[in-house]
């Protein structure tokens, strides 16, 4: 690998030059949301300055321009995850909406009372609650595959849950609370052997590793744009064309119809069938710019650089007495979740903030994971491609100092 252009990358993110409480910002809350490169900010400004109108409607020039840019963003997403067709890329508000779409459209039309949905013990609330809601509506049953103390899926126990009643597996590619990267190839193979479709929650995985949906052979893949250096309010549902074709629309409205009369309506083809109403036009074009940016750096390079950062952070954290790393899976992405003996994560969060360090303190929308470890919350430092070893040093010095202050 060539030398990772970290200085250039940092210079591309204007917010990294901010000072917080008179200290240089150390932004380690990337699992919650990533910062945006100038290219994305410029894209939004450019769209609103030169190319903005509603899409798929007007014959006028601006509408055509906006539509072309919007559909070009769809093609960028398709290429980024190597989907077979642009028809398989549905734009939504975020990973959460994508899961809800699959639950309400696929789930409600294809599942019935007594059918089972398998998730894992490490899911984000966004990959738990929509399935619970579906189960309540149709009488389906939610099954939870367990994990071990390291935060690794117990694969054999997962496989045992798959049976004739299982109609869907919905599992995270990478855990937001623990950093665990799941063995998704094995999971998909085991499910497909029993003709069970698999949805992967890629909200955390997508900014950290190359994702090829055809190589994975997953049936659905969901992610949010704002965690991929793109604007908030953007998200993607990938679904295999045959599955999407068979699914009823999720929401009704403009843009998703072919004809409407008061007697009945017919629906547009893919992908528009699932895109009722005016989408986040400038933001989705901005997501295209984010994909251009990250592609120019290369996902392989990003993954290698972040793996080094995580290894360094883990090694440093292990040297701090009283620090407990929560989530020690062998396969992990750039997330360091931890607790300190006798110091509550919220106090850690406030004290680090006073040093300019932004981390997350809380349950990370994964309350069952907190229950599993018997903690109310953890502190979580999560890394992006613009973070540095020096920032990890600042974090660790901060943690050492606050341990001393608390005594």
């Amino acid at each position, binding site marked *: 690998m060539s030398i990772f252009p970290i200085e250039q990358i940092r210079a591309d993110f204007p917010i990294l030059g901010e000072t917080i*409480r*008179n200290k240089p910002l150390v932004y380690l809350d990337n699992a919650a949301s990533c910062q945006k490169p100038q290219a994305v900010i410029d894209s939004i400004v450019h769209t609103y300055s030169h190319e903005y109108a509603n899409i798929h409607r007007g014959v006028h020039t601006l509408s055509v321009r906006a539509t072309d840019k919007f559909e070009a963003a769809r093609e960028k997403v398709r290429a980024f995850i190597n989907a077979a067709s642009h028809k398989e890329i549905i734009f939504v508000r975020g990973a959460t909406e994508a899961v809800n779409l699959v639950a309400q459209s696929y789930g409600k039309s294809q599942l019935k009372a007594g059918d089972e949905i398998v998730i894992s013990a490490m899911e984000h609330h966004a990959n738990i609650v929509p399935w619970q809601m579906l189960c309540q509506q149709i009488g389906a049953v939610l099954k939870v595959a367990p994990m071990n103390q390291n935060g690794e899926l117990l694969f054999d126990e997962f496989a045992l849950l798959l049976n004739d009643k299982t109609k869907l597996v919905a599992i995270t590619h990478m855990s937001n609370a623990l950093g665990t990267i799941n063995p998704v190839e094995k999971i998909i193979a085991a499910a497909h052997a029993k003709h069970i479709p698999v949805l992967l929650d890629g909200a955390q995985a997508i900014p950290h590793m190359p994702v090829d949906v055809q190589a994975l052979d997953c049936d659905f893949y969901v992610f949010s744009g704002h965690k991929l250096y793109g604007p908030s309010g953007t998200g993607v549902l990938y679904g295999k064309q045959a599955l999407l074709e068979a699914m009823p629309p999720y929401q009704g409205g403009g843009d998703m119809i072919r004809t409407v009369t008061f007697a009945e309506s017919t629906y547009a083809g893919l992908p528009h069938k699932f895109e009722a109403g005016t989408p986040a036009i400038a933001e989705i074009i901005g997501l295209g710019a984010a994909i251009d940016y990250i592609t120019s750096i290369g996902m392989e390079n990003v993954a290698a650089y972040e793996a080094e950062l995580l290894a360094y952070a883990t090694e440093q954290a292990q040297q701090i007495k009283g620090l407990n790393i929560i989530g020690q899976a062998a396969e992990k992405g750039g997330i360091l979740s931890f607790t300190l003996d006798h*110091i*509550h*994560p*919220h*106090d850690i969060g*406030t*004290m680090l903030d*006073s*040093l300019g360090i932004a981390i997350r*303190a*809380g*349950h990370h929308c994964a*309350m069952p994971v*907190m229950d599993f470890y018997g903690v*109310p*919350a953890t502190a979580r430092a999560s890394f992006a491609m613009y973070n540095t070893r020096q920032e990890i040093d600042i974090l660790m010095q*901060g943690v050492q*100092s*606050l341990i001393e*202050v*608390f*005594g």
Partner: protein
Amino acid sequence: MFDDLRDLYQEVIFDHNRNPRNFRIMDDANRRVDGFNPLCGDKLTLFLKIDDSHVIQDASFQGSGCAISTASVSLMTEIIKGKTEDEAEALFTQFHEMTTGKTEDINLEAIGKLAVLAGVREYPARVKCATLAWHTLDAAIKNQQEAVSTE
């Protein structure tokens, strides 16, 4: 290193966090209410013994929380003992105004040691840590059975 935080984390707060007062289950309590902050997962159970003339004879708590919430509930159980329900509610009002910054003037005579928590008003994300105990007290005095949530 944490000079900016001296207003928030005063020594009294560290002291109450390390050694919370009245941290025990009260077997003969006649009020018992759970308080919960779903944003951070903080949980506490407040026990009160209130006599026929509406005086709080005893107060104690159990639970886990951050230093701010632990110190707040610890200090509260100390200060409300011997107060009437009305006096305790009046303190809640003053405490709420102090921590949410509704008033700059702190009535030190009334609020006493609780003044160490005034610093949270500069940290909007932490105000609920300080007020959870008092919302739970309010529910206990009103004899509400349901758990209290800050959200």
